[in-house]
Structures are given as structure tokens and as C-alpha cells.
């Protein structure tokens, strides 16, 4: 049993004791209101209650494209995301892309060599002010009150793709064809989609409910490059790292308040 697994189990055990439930990474039943109401910036108010977020420590992933691929594969396998050749119809929840593509508002000219030449993991930012939720005409995509996850109801989505227009991160994919025959293996614990609906990363809501970590976090566990937790809990690991390290977000100037952070 390696050290990280032990810390994880200890953490899980502690959470279990605190929340009197099965061992969980994030206790979805915790009482909210841990967030301070202190205003930040231009009177911006913090979302009350739990707000799940994710921090990618790229320092641990430079030169490890194998790990980036592993995270993508793990996520896509767990969520029944088919592999479709070609850019046109592809579906992706988490994928790797160059610095210039991930951080279009950052200068590339004088970025460090490592930054310039490395690939970055990008995924849905689970924004605090999600434009996709604002534009959806059927509430098929919505913010889960308890966790702050931007979730999808695949059975309500009419496939208008307005959310794909609204998302400034290109995080959403549409099922241009029936995805089910294209799946090599099917995970029976997660629904496969039908054609004509939009899908995207769900922060592994279904795994969190079972006390598991998100699939990408687990996939890169060996280097501990992704930290997942409650941004509004000052005692969570992610909050502590955010307090300590300088992080950046993708296109934060748009006011979407992304919940995914990067250490570059």
C-alpha cells in the first residue's frame, strides 16, 4: 500500500466519521454554509454551501503524456464515451491540448519552454456562473444545488446545441450519431447516451455518490497531479493548496468563475 493511498484512506475514514456515512472522498451529506460570506473583487459573492472544484498540478504531468492519456481513457471508459475518428463528430469529456489552445488569453510568445511544449488537460470547468445553464431552453443542463456540479439530464435535452454555443471552453460534445454501437465495452453502472443529445464531464457525480474519486483523479493518482474537493471548505486539501500555490484558470475574464484550477 503506497503512501498516497494511505493518506487517501485516512482522509476518507475521517470524512466517514464526520459524516456518519460510507467512506467518501467528498461527503455529499455534509451540512453546508462553510463558506465565508466575505465579498471578493467587485462585490462578487461566493456561492454558499459546497462547491466542488478540481486542481491540476501540471508540474507533475509535464512530459507524462501517458498519464494525460490515461486520465482521458479512464474517464471515457467509465462514462461510455465512444471513440469516434476525426474531429468533426468526436465526443470528449477530458482531453489534452496545447497551452496556446487551453489558455487563449495568456501570452504564448514568452511562455517557458516547458509550458509551450507541453500538453494540458482540459475539461468542463463547472463554472459558478455557467453560460450553458443560462442558455438551455429546457433546464436539461443545470447546477446541482448540493455540490455546484454543472450536470446534464440526457433525457430532457432536445439537442438544440445552444449550450455548445454558450460554453466558452469548448467543453461540450453532441452525439451526431448513435454512440452505442461504437462502444467497445459498456460500463453498466453509467447510462450510455442516445443520439441527438449533448454531453460533457459531470465531475463523476455518480462515483462521488458511491464514495469514489473522479476517474481522472484516480488515473493519475501515482503522481497525485489532480486534487479534487470542496472549494468552499477552508479545510479541504484543494483549498489548502489553493491558499499556498499560485494558480490560473481558463479565460477567467469572462466572468464564468471556473472551478478548475491549474498550477503551471
Amino acid at each position, binding site marked *: 500500500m503506497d503512501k498516497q493511498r494511505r493518506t487517501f484512506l485516512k482522509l476518507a475514514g475521517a470524512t466517514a466519521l464526520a459524516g456518519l456515512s460510507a467512506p467518501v472522498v467528498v461527503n455529499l451529506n455534509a451540512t453546508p454554509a462553510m463558506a465565508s460570506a466575505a465579498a471578493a473583487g467587485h462585490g462578487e459573492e461566493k456561492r454558499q454551501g459546497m462547491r466542488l472544484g478540481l486542481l491540476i498540478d501540471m508540474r507533475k504531468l509535464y512530459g507524462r503524456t501517458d498519464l494525460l492519456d490515461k486520465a482521458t481513457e479512464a474517464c471515457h471508459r467509465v462514462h461510455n464515451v465512444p471513440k469516434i475518428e476525426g474531429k468533426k463528430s468526436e465526443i470528449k469529456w477530458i482531453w489534452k491540448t496545447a497551452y496556446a489552445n487551453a489558455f487563449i488569453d495568456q501570452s504564448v510568445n514568452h511562455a517557458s519552454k516547458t509550458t509551450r511544449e507541453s500538453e494540458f488537460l482540459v475539461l468542463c470547468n463547472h463554472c459558478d456562473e455557467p453560460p450553458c445553464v443560462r442558455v438551455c431552453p*429546457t433546464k436539461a443542463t443545470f447546477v446541482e444545488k448540493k455540490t455546484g456540479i454543472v450536470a446534464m439530464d440526457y433525457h430532457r435535452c432536445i439537442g438544440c446545441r445552444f449550450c455548445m454555443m454558450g460554453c466558452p471552453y469548448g467543453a461540450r460534445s453532441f452525439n451526431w450519431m448513435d454512440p452505442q454501437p461504437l462502444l467497445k465495452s459498456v460500463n453498466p453502472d453509467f447510462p450510455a447516451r442516445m443520439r441527438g443529445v449533448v454531453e460533457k464531464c459531470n465531475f463523476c457525480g455518480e462515483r462521488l455518490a458511491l464514495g469514489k474519486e473522479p476517474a481522472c483523479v484516480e488515473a493519475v493518482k501515482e503522481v497525485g497531479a489532480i486534487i479534487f474537493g470542496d472549494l468552499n471548505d477552508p479545510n479541504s486539501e484543494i483549498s489548502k493548496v489553493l491558499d499556498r500555490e499560485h494558480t490560473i484558470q481558463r479565460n477567467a475574464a469572462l466572468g464564468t468563475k471556473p472551478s478548475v484550477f491549474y498550477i503551471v
Partner: protein
Amino acid sequence: MIEKALKGNSNYWMWLAFLTAFIAVGAICYLRQFVYGMHLTGMGRDLSWGLYISQFTFLVGVAAGGLMLVLPYYIHNYKVFGRITILGEFLAIASIVMCLMFIMADIGQPLRGLNMIFHPTPNSMLFWDMVVLLGYLSLNVICGWVILTAEKKQVKPPKWVYIFVYISIPFAVSIHTVTAMLYCGLPGRHFWLTAITAPRFLASAFAAGPALIVIACLVMKRIANFDAGKEAVNKLITIIMYAAIINAFFVCLEFFVGYYSNIPGHKHSLEYLFFGLEHHGHVYNNLVPFMWTSVTFCFGALALFAYMKITKMSNDLLVGIGCLMTFIALWLDKGLGFVMGGLAVNPLDEVVEYYPTANEIGITLGIWATGFLLVTILYKIAVKVEHEVEGH
């Protein structure tokens, strides 16, 4: 009154058969898309709106263009438009029907369309667009039908219908404003993120709609013995000219903001549309010829109209050509450039170009043909009623 559409000469039936052929092809193409899925279109993950939505956007404008007849006639009591106001209302009906068909063709789960009503979502502009489009459609059906029926009976239209006529005026503005708001409120889509989108849409609508009505009037003058009157056509040309100039002015303002601010996101789409966008050593310029055709046609038509006004020349053919050029120019500008240009650069700064497929074009032509069929039938009824009243 519908029975009036069932009598016509062989040209009338041949024209309907011609349109029906397109509708049949469109229906088969749609059936294919319905059964096999949307990957039969040229749209993809990055360019996830295409021909359908851009036609929808343009046709909302054509529908709103009817306002340029209704407003002078009912508000300013401009009697010259008396004979043709009904044409504006009927064109609006056909255009909105086309709009709704394009929306249905575009959504991935058309059978779930009613979710828009079962789960109304006031924060979505698409919800409001549905509300104002259905509202405007109903208003035009009520006003058009009641007023035409009254004309047929040679009595004054009932007073209550004027309430609907007056309500339809702000509704015409609202349909295109809300359609602009689908685009102009999205963060990260720089080309669309401009407050001038709605005024620009309205300006181009007030040129494109009347242009189509003038063409219809000229055609009906030749084949249906229906004369809209020289003064009415002249006045419409003036309206078209002003609206087209205002639209061109707004486009120039976009150029100023993009190029003077020098913000890449604001420039990229304009560069892509008009000059070709260089990206990693490759120049993307698919739409450049279309956009310059649009510019040429727009200013060509304006010059032609201006010449005819100055020399007081009267030539139906030249008026028709000018209107057709205006209509095509604005279709290229809004029915093609606006949507594709805005999507050319994706949120991850990759450039993607769009090639509509044959199946997609088949559906698009089918829906246009349905609209033309509807316009033909409605205009046929309107003209027959006028002839009856005038005792032809």
C-alpha cells in the same frame, strides 16, 4: 377562401409542381437525417450550428420585414400601401413557418421539442424566441385572415382586429431582437458579442423583406394582373435603400471596432469572412468570395436604385434586378456569413471550416420550397379576393 387557391392556369400548377418536387426531395432527405442522425450534416463538434440556424436567422428577418408595410399603412395611414399590406402579413406567415421548420430540422431530438413548453425556462433566449415567433405567427394569421375576409365581404374590418394589428408592430421588432439576443449574449463568441447585432438584424430585415415583396409584386403584375401601383413600389425602394445603407453602416462600425481596438477575437471573424484568416501557415478563406459578392451586390443595387431615382427612370426589370441583388446580398451577409463567421474560430483557438452536405442542402431547399409554396397559395388567395372586389 382557401378554395380560391384551387383554381389557376397551367403555369400556376406547374410552378406548384416544381416546388413540390423540391419539397419531396427535402422530405426524403429529412427522413434520412431523422433515421440516421445529424452526422449526415456538415456540422460538427466545433461548428455545431450551420445552414439550418443561419436560414432561420435570415428568415426571421424576412418575417419582420413585413413591418415596413404594416407600420406606414396602419400607423401613418399611408393609403398607397393599402393593396399590398396583406402581402407583408402573408409573407410573414410563410417565413415564420419556414423558421419553425428549420428549428425542427436542426434539433437532435425533435420528438422532445415540446420540452420547451413543458419546462419553460425564462433565462433562455431560445424560450423567448419561441414565444415571440409563435405570437407573431398567430397575430399575422388573425390579422391577415380577418382583414381579407372583411375585404371579400366588402365591409370594414371589425374594430377588435386593429388591437392585434397594433400589437403585431412591436412583435415584429421583438422577433428579430430576440433572435439577435440568441447570439449577442454569449461570452467568448466575439463576433456576435456586440450590442449592434439586433439593430443590424433589423436594418437588414427591413431591406430584405420589402425586397422580396417588390419582386413578388412585379411577378404578379406580369402573370396575375395585379398591380401594386408605381407609387407603392417606389416608396418601398426608398425604404429598402435606407435600410440597406444603415445595415452597411453598421457593418463598417464592426470593422472599426475590430481593427482599431486590435483585439484578436474581434478581428478574427471579419478577417476570416473578408480577407481569409491565416492560422498556423494555412489561410482559411472559404467564405471570402461570398462576402465580396454580398458587398458588390449591396452597393451595386444601391447605385442602380439611386440612378433610377435621380433620372426618374421607371423600369420594372431593373427594379426587379436591384431587389434581387439586395435580397441575395443580405442573404449572403446574414444567412451565411453571420453564423459561419462567428463559429470559424472555436473556443480553443482552432479554425474549422464548414461544408454543408448534399443531404443538408436538400432539406434546406425543401423548406425554402415549402415557404414559397405557402406564399404562392396565400398570395393567390389575396389577389383573387382583390380581383373579385374590383370586379375583374
